[in-house]
């Protein structure tokens, strides 16, 4: 009897822990957002973070974008040629990249490359009591450490997604036009007639902004909230990658059904 009660108590403990953590994350993000104005005034800090969050992620984004586009071109051609619709290859590559693959895959790579680094860095700062030291000197670590990193993630993510998509389209063109021999003019003209700037390109950018917000939020919160031991930091880093990837994929479904649901 008491063991059943114990299980129920554990369930309650787990739920309360989750709710408390969600609440902490919400309070945390409001404080960080309030601190971003101060961070904008000291833009040099943000610039440093854009370098480590954005520029250092550039290589993996560029290379993956190119290869994703090339694979899309190849696979799309094999499928489309069954229906005699090779002329739509450019449209297929461009639509799938601008609407879905660009923002989503870029956000997944961003979570793996930049998000994990953010969590580990902030977690280590906490473990070595640098954050506590700042508070002792009346420097708010949320404004000095977290807000510039958050802002950098928010700025970098849409740019990275745009670069990923552009590289993908180029990769599709290399394979479709260069290797397979789809006509260059038809490739681009079908693309331009089918891709709408507002419906497709802009919605993709909105998606990448949302993903940038969520991934960076999860990354800095996990770092700030981690258990300040080496094991705690490693767990927080893992949690960042897992939770951020799940959040991106789940949110993508919600955003897609909101943006492209009707019609």
């Amino acid at each position: 009897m008491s063991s059943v009660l114990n299980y129920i108590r554990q369930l309650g403990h787990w739920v309360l822990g989750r709710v408390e953590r969600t609440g902490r994350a919400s309070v945390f993000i409001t404080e960080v957002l309030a601190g971003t104005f101060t961070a904008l005034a000291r833009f040099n800090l943000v610039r440093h973070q854009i370098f480590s969050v954005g520029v250092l992620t550039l290589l993996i984004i560029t290379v993956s974008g190119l290869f994703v586009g090339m694979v899309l071109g190849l696979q799309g051609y094999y499928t489309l040629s069954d229906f005699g619709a090779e002329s739509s290859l450019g449209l297929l590559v461009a639509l799938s990249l601008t609407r879905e693959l660009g923002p989503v895959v870029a956000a997944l790579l961003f979570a793996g490359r930049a998000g994990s680094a953010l969590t580990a860095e902030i977690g280590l700062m906490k473990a070595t009591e640098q954050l506590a030291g700042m508070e002792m000197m009346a420097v708010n670590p949320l404004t000095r450490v977290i807000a510039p990193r958050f802002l950098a993630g928010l700025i970098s993510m849409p740019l990275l997604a745009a670069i990923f998509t552009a590289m993908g389209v180029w990769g599709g063109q290399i394979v479709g036009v260069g290797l397979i021999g789809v006509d260059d003019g038809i490739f681009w003209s079908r693309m331009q007639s089918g891709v709408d700037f507002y419906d497709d390109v802009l919605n993709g950018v909105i998606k990448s902004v949302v993903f940038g917000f969520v991934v960076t939020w999860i990354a800095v919160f996990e770092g700030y909230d981690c258990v300040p031991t080496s094991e705690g930091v490693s767990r927080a880093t893992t949690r960042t990658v897992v939770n951020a990837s799940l959040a991106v994929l789940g949110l993508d479904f919600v955003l897609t059904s909101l943006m492209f649901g009707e019609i």
Partner: protein
Amino acid sequence: MGSNKAMELAVGVFVLAGIIALVFLAMKVGNLSTASVNEAYHVQARFDNIGQLKTRAPVTIGGVRVGRVSDIKIDENFYALVTMKIDSSYHKIPSDSGATILTAGLLGEQYISLEPGGADESLKEGDELLVTQSALVLEKLISQFLYSKAEETPASK
């Protein structure tokens, strides 16, 4: 100081690359460069049946795109009322032109083709095209064909 400058340069290149990628997506991949930023006027036409015509479908004269379908409604007599947005650089289309809904290829998208008439007056904002021809609906064609076949068979016996 030197490495700081290099870092700033790298950030600048990164932001610039992102913006260039966005412009590339807007201009070369999307239709922002071909979307009419210049003036346009609206013309209406009533059809019995518009088939699969959708908003944003092209409006052409002799295959050249002159505008887009901007709105599709149904009027009080249950005719389909299609509003077309025509680029004002094509402002000399005769007012007695006809509109036909055609299909690009056998199963492709449907679009509106305008056949220029002979009137001296040209179309203005809010005008209505009176000569229209509805879309061909494949199912109707097939059933008509089958019915006519069925009528033929007993006579040949």
